[in-house]
């Protein structure tokens, strides 16, 4: 249905934009092993994005590429968190920590969806995301509990992305789908998320940020100012060569 398609778009756009940001990093990581790891995570996110966009496009016959390359900014449904620029390595890890902990809860719940396609995507993704969480947690602890500088940077990075966290747990317009078991009620994931996060922050000697959440409405097509630049770059060939196949 159209509303399931809209829901798949929300999840798919988050994954797509997260993958695009990770794609920017390749060959710039602090170690080669980390280049490999970040590319892995990016590939997982890209795979999830493709599965979800393919599903979203079925409703009106659009391909994954139509959706990725030919939508305008206001038609995207990504959250502000994944749109944020990478910043330094602590910024990458802070974003990954929050996003992967959220995705872990999300996909775990979605494996029980009454929609078989979504349940199947979630079943695959939940295994992938387990590794993302592990990776983000390991680095959060290393950086938080490493040197003074790394602690300062990690705390700063966490503070910087914190305002964009709440949006992930907003239900947006999918109450009906959540009620009939198709979609996940994102607000119900928050407690498990917070519990898991607190354990990590504690071991990393980091403090839960005390900065106000922003009123982010990416689910309604109102995006952070970074998305326009990201899309201009991502879509440049599709815009220049309308109708071409690649």
């Amino acid at each position, binding site marked *: 249905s159209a509303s399931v398609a809209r829901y798949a778009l929300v999840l798919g756009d988050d994954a797509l934009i997260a993958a695009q940001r990770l794609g920017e990093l390749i060959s710039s990581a*602090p170690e080669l092993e980390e280049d490999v790891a970040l590319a892995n995570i*990016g*590939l997982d996110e890209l795979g999830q994005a493709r599965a979800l966009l393919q599903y979203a496009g079925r409703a009106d016959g659009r391909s994954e590429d139509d959706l*990725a390359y030919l939508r305008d900014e206001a038609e995207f449904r990504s959250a502000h968190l994944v749109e944020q620029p990478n910043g330094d390595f602590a910024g990458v890890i802070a974003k990954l920590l929050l996003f992967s902990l959220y995705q872990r809860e999300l996909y775990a719940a979605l494996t029980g969806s009454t929609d078989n396609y979504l349940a199947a995507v979630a079943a695959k993704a939940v295994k992938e995301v387990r590794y993302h969480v592990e990776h983000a947690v390991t680095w959060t602890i290393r950086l938080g509990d*490493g040197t003074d500088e790394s602690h300062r940077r990690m705390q700063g990075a966490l503070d910087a992305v914190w305002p964009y966290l709440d949006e992930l747990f907003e239900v947006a317009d999918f109450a009906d789908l959540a009620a009939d078991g198709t979609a996940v009620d994102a607000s119900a994931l928050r407690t498990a998320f917070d519990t898991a996060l607190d354990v990590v922050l504690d071991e990393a000697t980091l403090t839960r940020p005390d900065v106000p959440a922003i009123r982010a409405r990416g689910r309604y097509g109102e995006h952070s100012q970074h998305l326009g630049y990201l899309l201009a770059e991502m879509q440049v060939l599709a815009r220049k060569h309308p109708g071409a*196949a690649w």
Partner: protein
Amino acid sequence: RDRQDRFDETVAAESRIEPRDWMPDAYRKTLVRQMAQHAHSEIIGMQPEGNWITRAPSLKRKAILMAKVQDEAGHGLYLYSAAETLGVDREDLTEQLIDGSAKYSSIFNYPTPTWADMGAIGWLVDGAAIVNQVPLTRCSYGPYARAMVRICKEESFHQRQGFEILYELSHGTDAQHEMAQQAINRWWWPSLMMFGPPDDQSPNSARSMAWKIKRFSNDELRQRFIDMCVPQAEILGLDIPDPELNWNAERGHYDFGPIDWDEFFQVLKGHGPCNALRVSHRRRAHEDGAWVREAAAAHAEKQARTAA
């Protein structure tokens, strides 16, 4: 004397020299130089293709390209490990790379201005790499030979993907076809230079061949590559930019035009369009990562102390 004989016999018998075996100093040095250069090439080689990950024109191509660049990081890692079996340190090798004193394949000092370059790199650069590297799977030094087995398998996958990109472009819109042709025009000659200088200007080749590190001469490999490309270019529907390219029935090979070795040496000396960019990108990644590596070390030390 004995050791030298044993070494010579192992090599002659097509057996493998292993890390703990005795080996002549010059053999070790030659291998270290070659493997380090090979590893550096994989690492620097991530950049020309990394340049198009965010702009790949379809999600499928984006995924393939990300996976490919990731493979290159992986190849770099195997090769550094293989080099470390000879007693060198990866950190020292990295230092040499970022201070500009280490060599890497000059081909990566060319830019990738269009998407079609992803095709041309796959088809020609990886193609040339395979021709160079397949014989290395029988290299006399075991760890290098084994690394090459794995790497060659992935490279041939990459080459096919490059061919596919070009095929798609060549049979697409006029603008796409032209983009593909331009890319071939740009990459053809540099890819021929990947086999190194002509045999009569390659003084160390004979020794490497005696040691069974190298199996074929530069010119032999170059010819093999050209012979392989010509029919593929026909399938692609793209022209190879060499008016002198002609089948020579007598030789059973394609004849080809003269290579501009002056350009090769210019690029080698650092005047290529991207030399400065490639090394400085690597240096920046390394320097920007210093605080991260320090943090990881500091944390590991704390953990060790707690455990003790």
